[in-house]
């Protein structure tokens, strides 16, 4: 066990799995960086340095720089997965899924069903998501609801370095296509992470905090916002449960429903655009299956239905934060927001 950043946790998971299984290869744009250039090879190790050092250890047959050609290399990763390799493809920003979406949702996701259960496609696509980098509309989206929507794909959204390492190792060992979402703002977050390889199973939510008044379900980076909100609310005497589903497909609805049966109140926090996102999906399932247990209407905390803005002040307004989560909790607790009342 040692203190590691999210970035180091991902790098360590990749290195350990590549050592364990020679069929695991890594491909993507500048995952090494410098291929064919006069200067240094492994110059970048990924645009944010997440894969740094892997080229030096595993060489050019296991760590492949690709041209900027997402359809070709994501499709190649799918084809290679169906042909005996276990590729990890890095799609730099999830926003670029638009240029290669067919290869994911019409090809990789559907091989198994279309081919009558005879295809196995152990493909992992790692991708950066989320707002907070002043990266504007084409480099800041979440988009995981889009992939959660598609049968045949699994969606993994780690909320911390510990979660990232265990879930990525599970993703690489998993026999189905997995989209692994890494929040760019979390890369520098540090916590204690085991040095040895370990897995966290999919479809098993993490009970981050137990409290009897309200259930907060939060996705990815929003788990950190929910924790900050819960600490503030504790001082007001409101005791929150926080559930991190870890994976949105499969989704552990059992844990969420059990908690709502106990607390009777639900707030869902999701950084994805508000229409047809995880907040609407989870809320609908709770309303469908546990309506009688609800003491108050469900509250959803999501950004407004606009593209992610560039200007710092606008982006800060856009992103759900601890104050917005706390306000939603106060609403479902039936109490007026005291700070607003004081103004």
């Amino acid at each position, binding site marked *: 066990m040692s203190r590691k950043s999210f970035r180091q946790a991902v790098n360590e998971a990749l290195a350990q799995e590549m050592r364990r299984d020679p069929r695991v290869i890594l491909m993507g744009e500048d995952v090494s960086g410098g291929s064919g250039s006069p200067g240094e090879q492994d110059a970048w190790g990924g645009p944010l340095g997440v894969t740094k050092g892997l080229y030096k250890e595993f060489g050019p047959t296991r760590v492949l720089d690709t041209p900027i050609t997402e359809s070709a290399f994501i499709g190649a990763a799918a*084809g290679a997965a169906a042909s*005996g390799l276990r590729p990890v493809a890095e799609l730099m920003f999830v926003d670029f899924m638009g240029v290669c979406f067919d290869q994911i949702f019409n090809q990789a996701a559907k091989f198994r069903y*279309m081919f*009558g259960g005879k295809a196995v496609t152990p493909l992992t696509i790692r991708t950066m998501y989320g707002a907070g980098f002043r990266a504007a509309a084409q480099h800041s989206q979440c988009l995981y609801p889009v992939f959660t929507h598609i049968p045949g794909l699994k969606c993994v959204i780690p909320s911390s370095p510990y979660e990232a390492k265990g879930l990525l190792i599970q993703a690489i060992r998993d026999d189905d296509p997995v989209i692994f979402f890494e929040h760019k703002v979390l890369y520098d977050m540090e916590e204690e992470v085991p040095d040895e390889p370990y897995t966290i199973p999919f479809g098993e939510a993490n009970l981050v905090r137990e409290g009897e008044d309200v259930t907060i379900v939060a996705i990815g980076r929003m788990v950190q916002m929910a924790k900050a909100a819960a600490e503030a609310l504790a001082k007001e005497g409101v005791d929150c449960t926080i559930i991190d589903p870890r994976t949105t497909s499969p989704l552990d609805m059992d844990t969420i429903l059990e908690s709502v049966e106990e607390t009777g109140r639900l707030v869902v926090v999701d950084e994805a655009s508000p229409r047809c996102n995880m907040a609407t999906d989870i809320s609908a399932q709770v309303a469908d299956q546990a309506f009688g247990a609800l003491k108050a209407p469900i509250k959803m905390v999501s950004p407004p239905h606009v593209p992610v803005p560039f200007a710092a002040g606008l982006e800060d307004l856009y992103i759900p934060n601890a104050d917005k989560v706390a306000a939603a909790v106060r609403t479902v607790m039936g109490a007026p927001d005291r700070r607003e009342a004081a103004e």
Partner: protein
Amino acid sequence: MQLSRDDLLRAYRQMRLIREFEDRVHLEFATGDIPGFVHLYAGEEASAVGVCLHLTDRDSIASTHRGHGHCIAKDCDPVAMMKEIYGRKDGLCGGKGGSMHIADLSKGMMGANGIVGGGPPLICGAALAAKTLGTGGVAVSFTGDGGSNQGTTCEALNLATVWKLPAIFVFENNGYAEATSSKYSVSCKDIVERAQGFGMPGVMVDGHDFFAVWEAAREAIDRARSGGGPTLIEVKLNRYYGHFEGDAQTYRAPGEVEAIRAQRDSLDLFRNRVTEAGLLDIAQMEAIDAEIKQAIDRAVIDAKAAAVPGPADLLTDVYVSY
């Protein structure tokens, strides 16, 4: 390398099997018993067979929406194929794929594909796997003139050269992308011109001539197997039926198909060539014709009688585990 007598018999048998299969599906589709979209390969047999005769199960192919011929040429079971086209439980894909997604990965057949240009990137992956795992296998992408214009295809051609993959890109140019002529939709005179731009050898062959396809494919596949990288092959040919079954084909010239059938039929050309050269007897080929006709009769009877998938089958085969 020369074609042996066994090779010739095998080639003829497969070409005849494709023709009989497709002619029969054409007839049966008209009765309304076959659901969905069906795109037939009749007329193009020499391409699939001329290429796939060089391949074994360790080699992969990706096909198009017009995929039955590639399936047969890659040794998929024609009875299981017919059952799949009828949507039966013991069809090649359990009745979950149908004509447009027919596949058998155990034979290296990575699927017909409902998306034009869907296959070429997958073939880069199959070729990468063969190269990385050292299987000695090659991967062949079959695409049409329509697919030649897709971005996925252009990206795959580039990547195959950049990674020096054991891949072959076969463009079956039958002159029409759906109802639009390739003379209108393809920016260059011949698709083969694009090979140079992607840094790979290109060759154009007459797709009615089995021997021409076989020879071009042999050279390309030998080069790929020996580490020489990818090749583009443009195969000029014609389809006998419409884009899909039910297509009235009013975009074609009057008498166009009849003239090709009379003068450039790939099976007729093959028979003439091998009998004139004294390589095969006409009686041998007629015996194959009769045998295949019976086999396809049987396949249709079996397919019609076969069980359909049950309600429980709706939910299986989505994930390995979930």
